[in-house]
């Protein structure tokens, strides 16, 4: 296992896609932060660092997906995966080593985002919400990134065909789309607007219940589903509004465990040709 990890990390250090993704996350995080802060300062608006600091949480999954897809695809296309098994490593070790490599790469992206975002400190000062709050959201980001890594490793290692790369990268889009749909449903206000704008000006009416508002058990289910999808947590971290942090962390743990255990079980039986 140690040998496998050493070999994977050795390859990761020379992987162009990994460094491209790392550089892009760092450049975007730094560049956008400077751009947004400068824009606000120029317009005389009061701004806080945390207002923009978590904006990069959403696209993190895409970079994890691209890096994982390319890294795992090369294992099959170059025949490395068969070599590893031929020299006596178990399939379980091979799968776990790949998962840990993808996870490490994605944690590097998280670090690039967090470091790059600090570019705004000289312009607007440190976080007003306190370091603890930032650390708390960073922890959730690390956990949902681990869940993303587990999902992408599962897909990348079990779909060895030509379309594996495409499937892994599109999986992120599908997760984002699903999370956005749930977010839209949950963001419906409970009461319909009591203000009507007419030709004679603004008129107030009685507040009515919004028929699109989801309540009760169904709302709890949707909230749970939003936490289960890592992209749903990314949306919550981006807007700094994680509804139930403990549930979010447990969901990440659950998703990571299910996909890793499932992946191990399926990979044991996979025909590697």
């Amino acid at each position, binding site marked *: 296992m140690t040998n496998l990890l050493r070999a994977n990390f050795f390859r990761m250090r020379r992987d162009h*896609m990994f460094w491209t993704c790392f550089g892009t996350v760092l450049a975007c995080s730094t560049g956008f932060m400077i751009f947004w802060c400068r824009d606000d300062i*120029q*317009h*005389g*608006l009061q701004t806080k660092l945390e207002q923009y600091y978590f904006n990069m949480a959403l696209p993190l999954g*895409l970079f994890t997906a*691209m890096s994982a*897809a*390319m890294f795992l*695809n*090369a294992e099959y*296309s170059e025949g490395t995966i068969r070599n590893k098994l031929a020299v006596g490593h178990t399939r379980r070790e091979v799968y776990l080593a790949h998962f840990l490599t993808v996870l490490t790469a994605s944690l590097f992206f998280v670090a690039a985002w967090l470091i790059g975002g600090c570019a705004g400190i000289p312009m607007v000062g440190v976080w007003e919400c306190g370091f603890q709050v930032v650390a708390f959201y960073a922890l959730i980001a690390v956990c949902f990134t681990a869940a993303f890594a587990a999902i992408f490793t599962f897909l990348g290692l079990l779909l060895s065909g*030509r*379309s594996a*790369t*495409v499937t892994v*990268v*599109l999986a992120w*889009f599908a997760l984002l789309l699903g999370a956005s749909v749930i977010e839209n449903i949950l963001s419906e206000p409970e009461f319909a607007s009591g203000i009507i704008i007419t030709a004679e000006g603004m008129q107030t009416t009685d507040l009515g219940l919004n*028929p*699109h508002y989801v309540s009760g058990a169904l709302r709890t289910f949707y909230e749970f589903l939003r936490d289960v999808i890592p992209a749903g947590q990314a949306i919550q971290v981006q807007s700094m509004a994680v509804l139930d942090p403990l549930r979010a962390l447990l969901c990440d743990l659950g998703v990571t465990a299910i996909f890793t255990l499932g992946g191990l079980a399926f990979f044991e039986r996979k025909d590697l040709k």
Partner: protein
Amino acid sequence: MRAKLSVNLLLRANFSRLWRSASFWVSVAVMSAISVFELAVGYQPRLQGGAGILDNRYMIFALLSGVVLSAFCSLFTGSEYSDGTMRNKVAVGHSRTAVYLSNLAVCAAAGVLACCGYILPMVIVGVPLLGPFTMSVSSLLWFTLCAFIMTAAMCAIFTMIAMLNQNKAVVAVICIFLAYFLLFLGIYLNTRLTEQAVIPAREYIENGQILVREAMPNPSYVQGVKRTVFEILYGLPGCQAVQLLATAEACPVRLPLASLGAIAVSTTAGAALFRRKDLK
């Protein structure tokens, strides 16, 4: 005469491969599935006594086509390299330009067909379910034509990337990333360019007194060279999808013209570079 025949043969071969391509049928199926999902979501307010509007749901295919086709174009064209078909075509005497153009034509046709996979359920099931479109037929057809030309432009860009790089995985990642990037750039540009130039005067109550805030210039309003740059970027295929949705009824002529320009530039550059490419 020989060149024309050559392109016809290539087109016939490519279309024959298209009908057997799993990635093409998956693309059509994904677009159809999203169409059915949108109809189901649109029908819910009608069940509760409200009105479901078909127009907004119909237009979503313009947004989705880029991402779906980025995957298709990279897989379909990538197979030409991985299966060695590309070299065979050149070896039997087809010109490289003909090979390039035939691939572009098939990818663009597949793009339009995938969009039809979305449009057909929307029209056949949507109209009886949600009622007719509120916009005029001419506006609807004009919007659809603009969206088709934009889809063809996206396919032209993806085909260029796929024809110039033999690594299918790299091509897939670049194309999908580009599709996401253009889509999110379009959403950002739409937000910035639709900012009002002036924040209107407003009356508000503070400590029981009615106060008036005078109209003031909006600091977020983009102007000058920056606005011109933003408007040019907003016309790029992909970004344009957001603009098409925003101006569906009166879609300006410059949008399809910008798409045709993108097709011309990418095809000229792609074909020129492909002629010099080492096919190994």
